[in-house]
């Protein structure tokens, strides 16, 4: 479903990704690990279409389409969801209002009717309960005054409501305590299906105890230097990234 070929990316003139190759099939969970500054977040942002990055070389194919040609909102409507590392606050806009606008934009794109208020409320309550979210967070403005943990949980909540085809989690675990991380991981795990794939970007392997990946890739200095299964993450934990670099 996703094919990244020899992707080179610059930001502010600095060469960050230097030839990334990656293939993700439907139903798979891939984890991208790596030290700080290796380009993990850049990869996540570029896939979601964040402006400010220069694609120097390479191709990205998503469901047979040239992903790099699509605007960020078009990618979202085609099912790409990015859970932000630093979720953004939107003062004065209620969380559910925002989410409903997003869901309807996506449904419209798929040629479906707008979701009715009652139906939407039911959906939202169900997903919030699954993620053990405080319901007051639903009516409050998007992320405004949310704690770090609440913001991250809210991202997974958005993902659960929007039900993407490809979910990209950008260091969702950072800033979460172990209980919150478990809830978030359970949420992600419950969304796993043969028609849905995930790319989980993380610095630590502990998240992968709960979201068990099919593949683990180590990104270092803008390149994937090692790939393997879940055991690779455990080895990394013991020996550190320096080992992977040599390998």
């Amino acid at each position, binding site marked *: 479903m996703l094919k990244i070929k020899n992707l080179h990316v610059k930001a502010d003139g600095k060469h960050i990704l230097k030839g990334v190759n990656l293939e993700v099939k439907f139903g798979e969970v891939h984890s991208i690990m790596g030290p700080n500054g290796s380009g993990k977040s850049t990869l996540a942002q570029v896939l*979601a*279409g*964040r*402006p*400010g990055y220069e694609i120097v070389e390479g191709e990205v194919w998503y469901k047979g389409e040239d992903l790099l040609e699509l*605007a*960020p*909102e078009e*990618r*979202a*409507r085609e099912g790409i*969801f*990015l859970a*932000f590392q630093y*979720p*953004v606050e*939107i*003062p*004065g*806009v209620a969380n559910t209002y*925002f*989410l409903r*606008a*997003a*869901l309807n*934009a*996506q449904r419209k*794109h798929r040629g479906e009717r707008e979701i009715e208020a009652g139906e939407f409320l039911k959906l939202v309550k169900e997903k919030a309960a699954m993620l053990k979210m405080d319901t007051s967070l639903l009516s409050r*403005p998007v992320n405004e005054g949310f704690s770090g943990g609440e913001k991250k949980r809210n991202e997974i909540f*958005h993902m659960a409501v*929007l039900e993407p085809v490809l979910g990209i989690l950008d260091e969702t675990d950072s800033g979460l305590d172990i209980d919150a991380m478990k809830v978030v991981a359970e949420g992600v795990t419950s969304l796993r299906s043969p028609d849905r794939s995930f790319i989980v970007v993380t610095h630590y392997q502990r998240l992968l105890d709960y979201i068990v990946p099919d593949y683990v890739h180590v990104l270092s200095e803008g390149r994937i230097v090692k790939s393997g299964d879940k055991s690779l993450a455990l080895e990394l934990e013991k020996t550190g990234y320096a080992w992977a670099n040599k390998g």
Partner: protein
Amino acid sequence: MSTEKEDLQRLAEEEYKHGFYTDVEADSLPPGLNEDVIAHISSVKNEPEWLLEWRLKAYRSWLKMKEPRWAFLRYPEIDYQDIIYYSAPKSQKDGPQSLDEIDPELLDTYNKLGIPLVEQAMLAGVVGVAVDAVFDSVSVATTFREKLAEDGIIFCSMSEAVQDHPDLVREYIGSVVPITDNFFSALNSAVFTDGSFCYIPKGVRCPMELSTYFRINAAKTGQFERTLVIADEGSYVSYLEGCTAPVRDENQLHAAVVELVAHKDATIKYSTVQNWYPGDENGVGGIFNFVTKRGKCLGDNSRISWTQVETGSAITWKYPGCILQGDNSIGEFYSVALTRRRQQADTGTKMIHIGKNTRSNIVSKGISAGRGHNAYRGLVKIGKGADNARNYTQCDSMLIGDKCGAHTFPYIEVNNPTANMEHEASTTKIGEDQMFFCQQRGISPEDAVSMIVNGFCKEVFKELPMEFAVEAQKLLGVSLEGSVG
């Protein structure tokens, strides 16, 4: 570097396609202002002697005054002798015959704002509609007026009030904004041609929102509008001015005066939505709007609340204020001002605390896009005798793009040590982060801007009457969207 930034820039600079223009068949005086012109206006309107004297007094003071230039506004010299101060009511023979002849872009905007067809025709100046025909506005207005009269409420044009209720007019006109108050109010006092008059008797709660919509069959108000609202003891009224529909006017200079008087225990809520032609990309052709609006909380426990949504005009100079004279009286000001293209707004409020335990609340939201400049200018003055006065001011600015400006000029004057003042201010920029976040969830850039801006203005919108608030939200969306369609 980023297309996002360009998108914002483009959105902010979109063509204004909503204006329209009706040709005037004018039976008018030649341009220029002198005592004869004023005498002519007064005699055409069959005014009593005292009102002519009042006008002339205003004119003579105006001659000695200088146009204020202290505002953060740049505009060319206004030639006051090049303005036509009186033209007879127009017959619209040459106007469009049906909606088919109206600019489809304009109709599209109307539809986006949810304006019904009959009203669209009226706004677009389709021949016959404003007076009768399709829409039986005369009877609608009459019905409402009869209903109001049952409660003793007077709601009519200023011209009618001068004829039918001269004592009320004489007692209150100029009692809040004296003729010598400022250059523009003096000019207005000399040459005003019409406006609205409203009187709510003792103990009456006006059963409906009063809006100029209900008196559409009244004479067309010109560029010098005069409004007077009086709420007698224990009464309540909510008054709506303007509409969200884009309005174009052949007169570039507008100088209105609005006076509100609240007696003991009375409450006046005055809401305005202003969407006059802002001018083209280079600022050419937009309306210059110099307005003096002031309310006097005359009696104890009275309350005056101003809410405004300003999206139009090339130049806006406007400071709706409250004189808190009665003890325990409350003054409020809630404002959203949007400037885009080359629009400039210098707006804010004046809260003058005189009585004891008086309170004022100010919430101002300024949004600047394109090459727009938005200045908040507010005065809070606590008089010597105003024990335990309280003021809360919140003043937020939002910038869209990098060629616009936001400015804040707060003036605080405290002459009583028991006063309690709070002032909060913030400036934010619609960030690429916020935009990207919305887009990443599937929301288009246009909808994202509209959503972020409306969220920013929420505290003000909740002060508007429900339907007006919905319209105002749509208006901000459409204004920022620019490209209709």
